[in-house]
């Protein structure tokens, strides 16, 4: 196979800010903490950063969701940029990663700083919120697009939208709540070994089954936890690898496809999501196969999304995820597919896909500390998004 664009690009730096619940620190302060640490991790100075990307860019919407925009970060660090982008559309939370890979491969930039910041825990204070509520009185703007087709009917939360996918899946295939619970229980076991994780206390199946319902069939422990924190990467041209101080992690393939309808309820088969399209795209761009993956970090904003990604990426057959995760042995750190080894978002905190990618990099570098997968992982996959949003990246240690 001729060299793909991805294979000319490496992850040279990776870092996080302080992560936690209600840190009550500013989003820009957290962002700069992570960005400067990532630049240092890459062995670079800020003068050498010539690209900047983020998701979703500065926007309205739920408080604490967007983080600072790229102009603010650029100006704060006085970066001289040849390429920059941010926006809420595209291949989910990994759009800026996937775009940065393309920008580096195309030569638009040599070292792209990519960040994602959330301060939802501090912003929400009172727990999970839905969209467009704020008191339920007057003054709520009307919604257009797909939100205008869902919110009038009280489908305020992504938990509702994911729930009706999970319900349909449980109707067509075999997936019990006991099986689904394994995604949350596995995450908690891994989080116990991650000092940055938000929830580290032991969690049992009984705890899961007695947790209150949010939106059937999803209970509280199927939902991730809002967090404060920033994650940043430096994505560089592969010819920088010889100067890197960290182990070289190369991009092997990315997946960004969206072939079916861009919708939370209009996709032909609601037992799948855009992830299926993105996953097929990713595997079309590499000679590696699912069985070559040593560690998987799959989006778990809701537990069923991980089930959905497991099938989309071909780690089990369609309809077979329930059996695959049953008992949790296969997805444990010493299983055939170590999954969400840092605790994911369910226990680690909703860093919106970037925490999962960070964990993938740490595992490939052998820097995951107490939770390091023991089999010397060389290939990792990270996938983010749900519904019409999906992006995935396959990474390999050089």
């Amino acid at each position, binding site marked *: 196979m001729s060299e793909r664009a991805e294979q000319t690009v490496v992850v040279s730096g990776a870092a996080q800010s302080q992560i936690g619940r209600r840190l009550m620190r500013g989003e820009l302060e957290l962002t700069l903490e992570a960005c400067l640490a990532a630049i240092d991790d890459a062995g670079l100075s800020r003068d050498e950063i010539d690209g900047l990307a983020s998701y979703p860019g500065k926007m309205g919407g739920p408080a604490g969701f967007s983080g600072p925009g790229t102009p603010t970060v650029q100006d704060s660090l006085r970066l001289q940029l040849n390429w920059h982008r941010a926006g809420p559309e595209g291949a989910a939370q990994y759009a800026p990663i996937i775009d940065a890979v393309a920008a580096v491969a195309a030569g638009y930039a040599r070292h792209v700083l990519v960040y994602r910041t959330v301060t939802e825990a501090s912003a929400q204070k009172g727990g999970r919120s839905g969209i467009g509520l704020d008191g*339920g009185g007057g003054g709520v703007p009307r919604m257009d697009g797909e939100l205008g087709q869902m919110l*009038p009917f*009280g489908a305020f939360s992504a938990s509702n939208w994911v729930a009706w996918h999970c319900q349909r899946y449980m109707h067509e295939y075999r997936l019990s709540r006991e099986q689904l619970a394994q995604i949350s229980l596995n995450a908690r076991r891994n989080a116990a070994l991650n000092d940055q994780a938000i929830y580290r206390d032991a969690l049992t199946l009984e705890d899961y089954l007695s947790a209150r*319902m*949010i939106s059937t069939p999803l209970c509280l422990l199927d939902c991730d936890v809002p967090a404060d924190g920033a994650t940043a990467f430096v994505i560089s041209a592969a010819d920088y690898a010889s100067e890197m101080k960290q182990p070289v992690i190369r991009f092997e393939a990315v997946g960004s496809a969206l072939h079916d309808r861009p919708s939370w309820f209009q996709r*032909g088969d609601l037992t799948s999501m855009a992830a299926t399209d993105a996953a097929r795209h990713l595997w079309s761009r590499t000679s590696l196969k699912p069985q070559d993956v040593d560690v998987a970090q799959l989006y778990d904003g809701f537990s069923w999304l991980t089930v959905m990604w497991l099938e989309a990426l071909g780690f089990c057959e369609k309809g077979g995820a329930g059996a695959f995760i049953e008992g949790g042995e296969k997805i444990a750190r010493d299983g055939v597919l170590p999954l969400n080894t840092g605790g994911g978002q369910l226990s680690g905190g909703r860093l919106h896909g970037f925490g999962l990618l960070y964990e993938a990099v740490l595992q490939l570098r052998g820097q995951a500390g107490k939770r390091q997968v023991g089999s010397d992982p060389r290939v990792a996959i990270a996938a983010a998004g749900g519904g019409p949003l999906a992006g995935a990246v396959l990474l390999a240690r050089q």
Partner: protein
Amino acid sequence: MSAEPKHGGVNGQAPFRVLPKISDDDRPFWTGGERGQLLLPRCKNCNRWHSPPAPLCPHCLSKALAFVPLSGRGKVYSFTINVQAWNPTFEHPYVIAVIELEEQSDLRLVSNIYGCSPESVEIGMPVSVFFEAFEDVWLPLFRPLVEEGGSDE
């Protein structure tokens, strides 16, 4: 019109519903309920319906579209019983369903189902539309289909 108590609220009050921003493209869909009609565009060229309304037929790209009343009958393709009180003006729990309309298998709406207990809703359940007005929007809501004329097919 407004004398009829609205479904889904607390203590006989109408629930506070976030409303759609109506455009020229979809105005018949959101206002057809005033005449009891569920309206979506149907293509005169390929005879297929589409949702949401758009200025071109997404199947054949024809502009020859007309809003045509649907039967208002469909089936529950999937659903969820929302328990979490995101909005305290809604009576909880309530059913949010993805409804597949009978005219075409890919014609779906998100809506609520009233007129039965949430626990009795299941995938495949036949439902029929009714409308409630909120400001200038007539929201299509659904209830279990009651067969007319004794047909129990």
